[in-house]
């Protein structure tokens, strides 16, 4: 089988300008959503109590809401979780009351209302932990950016490092934008997924950069734009197949993984497809705008580096 019957180089960079404009608009929109709508942060970040309960048959949501409200809570959520029998209740942090007390009081009240309630899990996170998680997440992001810039600058060249990191940030911000726009729950696994996308999308850009460098070595006197187009054309088959495979895996998680992995796989799905797009149209084109030249990547061999041949006595 062969999906990619490409007979001549595809002029990817011809539309770079238009696509970069679209990227910029998407990026800014994502930033705006993040600023103005914010995230639907999970309990791990906000602190509070989550209680998951399961009923023998479909859960009486309105009754559960009444019960919770009857205990004096105002700012709480009650929603189905996965199936119609499972219910997820989120309670805000209560001053001076521990979560165990919270959950015990609530369970007693719920059992009174309906028989056959099973407590599946309780999670309580103090306010301080949430703050630390946010800080650690941002630190990790910073570390990754610096690490990748240094690595790419050493292995390739600073222009590529800048291009790679911009493409990377583009992907991450757009995923976050999706989560802000749709108000999907942003939990710790999602954070892990977003950070995995970081590595994933840079991986993509590196494969293309590798090819660009190789083509500069092979071909002389070729327009930079054509070299970049050629590199992308040669790697596009690998890009699509690899991502297709990863997507199969992620899709499997989306289907079988249950509600816990749902948003994690969603974040990865967005990351995979934007990763392909950004490695081609953001990383490569930024490198082009920055004016990557053959001399940047192909170090001319200095004359005095050549070793003279000498005779010596056989030992």
């Amino acid at each position, binding site marked *: 089988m062969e999906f990619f019957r490409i007979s001549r180089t595809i002029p990817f960079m011809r539309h770079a300008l238009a696509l970069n404009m679209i990227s910029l608009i998407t990026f800014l929109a994502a930033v705006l959503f993040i600023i103005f709508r914010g995230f639907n942060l999970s309990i791990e970040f906000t602190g509070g109590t989550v209680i*998951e309960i399961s009923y023998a048959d479909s859960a009486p949501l309105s009754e559960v809401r009444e019960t919770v409200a009857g205990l004096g809570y105002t700012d709480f959520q009650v929603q189905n979780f996965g199936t119609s029998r499972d219910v997820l209740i989120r309670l805000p942090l209560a001053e001076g009351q521990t979560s165990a007390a919270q959950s015990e009081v609530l369970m007693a009240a719920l059992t009174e209302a309906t028989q056959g309630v*099973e407590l599946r899990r309780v*999670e*309580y996170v103090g306010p301080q932990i949430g703050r630390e998680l946010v800080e650690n997440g941002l630190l990790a992001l910073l570390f990754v950016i610096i690490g990748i810039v240094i690595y790419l600058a050493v292995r390739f060249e600073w222009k590529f490092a800048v291009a790679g990191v911009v493409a990377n940030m583009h992907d991450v911000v757009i995923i976050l934008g999706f989560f802000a726009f749709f108000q999907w729950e942003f939990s710790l696994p999602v954070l892990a997924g977003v950070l995995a996308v970081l590595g*994933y999308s840079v991986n993509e850009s590196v494969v293309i950069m590798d090819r660009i460098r190789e083509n500069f070595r092979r071909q002389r006197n070729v327009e930079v734009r054509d070299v970049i187009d050629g590199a992308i054309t040669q790697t596009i*088959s690998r890009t699509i197949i690899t991502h297709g495979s*990863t997507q199969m895996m992620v899709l499997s*998680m989306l289907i079988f*993984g249950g509600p816990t992995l749902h948003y994690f796989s969603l974040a990865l799905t967005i990351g995979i497809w934007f990763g392909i797009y950004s490695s081609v149209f953001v990383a490569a084109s930024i490198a082009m705008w920055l004016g990557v030249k053959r001399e940047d990547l192909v170090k001319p061999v200095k004359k005095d580096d050549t070793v003279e041949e000498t005779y010596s006595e056989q030992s």
Partner: protein
Amino acid sequence: MNRYPLWKYLTVLVALVLGVLYTLPNFFGESPAVQVSSAKSTIKVEPEMLQRVQSLLQQADITTTGSSFERNGPVGTIRFRFANTDIQIKARDLIERALNPNPQDPDYTVALNLLPASPQWLSAIGANPMYLGLDLRGGVHFLLQVDMEGALTARYDSIATDFRATLRDQRIPTSGIEREAMSVVLAFPDDGARSRALALLRSRSNDMTFQEGAGQGTLEGRPILTARMTDATIASVQSSALRQNITTLHNRINELGVAEPVIQQQGSDRIIVQLPGVQDVARAKEILGRTATLEIRLVDDSPTATSALAAGTVPFGLERYDDTDGRPLLLRRQVILTGENLQDAQAGRDQQTQQAAVHLTLDNKGARIFRDVTRDNIGRRMAILLFEKGIGQVVTAPVIRSEIPGGQVQISGSMSAEDAADIALLLRAGSLAAPMTIIEERTIGPSLGAENIEKGFQATLWGFVAVVAFMIVYYRLFGVFSSIGLTLNVLLLLGLLSLLQATLTLPGIAAIALTIGMAIDANVLINERIREELRRGESPQAAINIGFERAWGTILDSNLTTLIVGIALLIFGTGPVRGFAVVHCLGILTSMFSAVVGVRAMVNLTHGGRKRLKDLSIGTVWKPKD
């Protein structure tokens, strides 16, 4: 051209065998077991107990499938495996009756438990199953914050009291000694008093720094000294507080009879407690928060008391307690000191005789009372009592030889170094060094855990099947090689994780699935590259060689950048994110090895020796028509 030296083939083979061996234990599941641990801090479970229980079971014709003794810090635990739950229950009842003749006051906790059922020969080579995280197993997780400020404040309070006593004894006048935030401020009527006090205190407490200054506010115009602990002292106060809290938690959690409690330090002031399989959060919390108490009382050894004891009666005004060997003692009701007055207890040696000894440090109030009581009761015995769960036990009852004024007490006599360590531990374990608060708590029901495993397994399996099917259809024989390489990768990853005894969580399973998806990248890079070389008109052998060579550079680059991300997650992540990162990083390493070395070995083995290789089974190599 495409030949590997023998050692490379062997490396791949060894990796495969090790991967299989260390992955195996994860598939045996668990078998029912009974675990015996101590229910009191005065009783220790030693390896001898193993033989004792063994012979008990033999007499009753109960067969075990394996037994183990494990020491975790100061705490010993014995576990016996059984073929099924019926035998397990029978054995539990038998052991319970034999070890705890008095059910009201049990010496040992005998609990039902589950142990990995992997065969003995696997455990012998260190192949054990992965530890399942709470989200896959069910149980309770607490994150406790130790109030270090509380520990330090208490220490400064006692330092202030010490200073008052020292200066009073030396008749140095002061205008007040108080703790202010994290320091002790001493005010003096004049400079002369201050410099004398400074010289005296400097010589006595080398773990403090003193700073001279002028008083503010109410102390306006008076010379003052500000005393602070050195950084090293603060660090040691904090770390010993944390250690003591962990020890205390260990002792208490043993009462719950939990299978494999995890009690770990996290950061400089936090403790993680995980209790797999425990569902009763309320009880767990109550036990974590409980304090044992210490009391010091005088022993009544008068002839009347001794004869009453022999007759089995207790005279008025006395109480009867047993010591750790079960010998009864009669103590006076009056409590001389409590555990609050005891600052520290350490095992050590007597300066003169080099015998094992326990050194106690009392606070100021305690030291004064102790001085008075010892002065008036020379020749009598003084007992140290430990109350747990409302039942008191005499830890030790030494004879008072002389007046002990300084608050530094030494207990020595006919004890071994081990006894001294035990007594010191008991005296310390009675209390938490610093108060703790629960800042994070999770409870996962057991049914949810089983469901999560199922989901994670399904997701990985079907994703894997889909990827393998695609590879084989698209790349034919080379796709088969890639799929075998992928399987090797999964085996190596699971084997490594089992070897490291990593804790598997649901995000961890997700990371395994993702790793498989990403591992394909290396294979695709190689296969596409070989096709490309064939398209350029290279001979099959050369195409294989160039394909692998060229792809290697790209694979290295792209995986290293991904590794940078993984390491960042390892450094900054906590809990589930860190679990994800461990799998992510290991997965990158195993996938590089299996794709580059493993698949190459297979290709070389099958294609390397063939001189006239006409074409490769790598799917359609389409060539553009010029």
